């Protein structure tokens, strides 16, 4: 019988923001995430955060060829995985529960 991982998934504020944006808007690339986050994500660090989230299995990516009239390298599009959606859902509920408990 395979051992189940006992590690509780966690989300940093930036990871939460990225997952929220991806869940709301579907597939996005790095710069779209930066502009959609209203400067809360930085261009210099967003790709490293996205790479880390991909390692954790929260998001997945695929290469998309650039439009022929624009040219350039293929762009990497990011989308949430079912695990990412579940973690975000659970995280949001836990946060709301904590806020409610401590607001009393």
């Amino acid at each position: 019988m395979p051992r189940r991982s006992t590690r509780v998934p966690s989300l940093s504020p930036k990871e939460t923001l990225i997952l929220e944006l991806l869940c709301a808007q579907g597939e996005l690339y790095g710069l779209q995430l930066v502009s959609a986050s209203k400067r809360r994500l930085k261009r210099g660090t967003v790709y490293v955060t996205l790479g880390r989230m991909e390692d954790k299995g929260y998001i997945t990516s695929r290469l998309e060829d650039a439009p022929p009239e624009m040219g350039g390298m293929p762009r990497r599009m990011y989308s949430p995985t079912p695990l990412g959606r579940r973690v975000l859902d659970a995280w949001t509920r836990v946060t709301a529960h904590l806020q409610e408990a401590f607001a009393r």
Partner: protein
Amino acid sequence: MTMHTGRGVRRLAARILPDSTVQRFVDPAIADLQHEHASALHYGHPWRARRVRLFGTLRLLQVIALLGVLRALQIGMGHRAIRPALATVAAVMAVAAISIGLVFFMLVQLPLEPWRPGDNVRLVYYLVPSTVVVSIPLGCALGAIMAVGRRVGLRQRLTLLVTAAALSALSFGLFAVLVPTANREWVRTLVGGHPAAPGIHEMPFTDLRVWLAPEPYRLVRGHFIIPHNDARAVFFAYETRFAISLAPLVFCILAFSLSNRRRALRTCAVVCVWAGYLLWYAWFDEAVVSASAVPVSLLAWMPNILVLTSAMLLSTTGLRRLA
């Protein structure tokens, strides 16, 4: 044009980073930059396109530098010689700091005011930043000696240099704020908790700079400070803080230059040089600096200059021997 945007940076990244890292972190950033650049040109905004290219390239360089440093540290940490070296740095620093603290504590004169409960603990607590600053160069050099041998490659040396530079920055931070503050509290504890006018060693950099300014008197932290009777002593204290902050890096370079020698000899040499440093800065107190005719900057930087010159000579001799 868009096709070429970021290509030079990608070549640079490919030299420093592994292919997988370039494909995962650098390529998406370049693709987005190219797309943004092409969009600006497509919609007739050439100046916006230039701006996008300039700032995008700078951000790419920032990402590559960050990933490069992380990789250098990762490779260095993976080397079997580096972990014991870093453990040695920490252990030597701790032992040296505690020893210096104990010696200083035993030599200190009794307070003028009645001893209050907890004053012993307070004095030890305020002594910690100074002893840590003094012990950092020795820890750095002995750690480097533990790690550096003939078989240690450039990347491992780079890891040690980055660590030494970080320790230098830490020393500077301690010297700039924490050490003077702790010294001030130390003096205050000695005089029974009464506020005391700060001396040279109790002033942060900003206050020392105020003291060096040619004005009749200054108000520093609520105290009127009359001009110091000897600007040379103040200037020496000011320069010394920079010089000692750089000592970890200097000691690390010295350890590199000794890498061809036997370990016992290297350790002995580094301990002697460190003791020389301590004696030098202990000997040149305010009175000696005032009496001396040698330029103050030279006095403050002399140990670093001597050690770096020796390291250079030793490296040259070592290279000749290897040749």
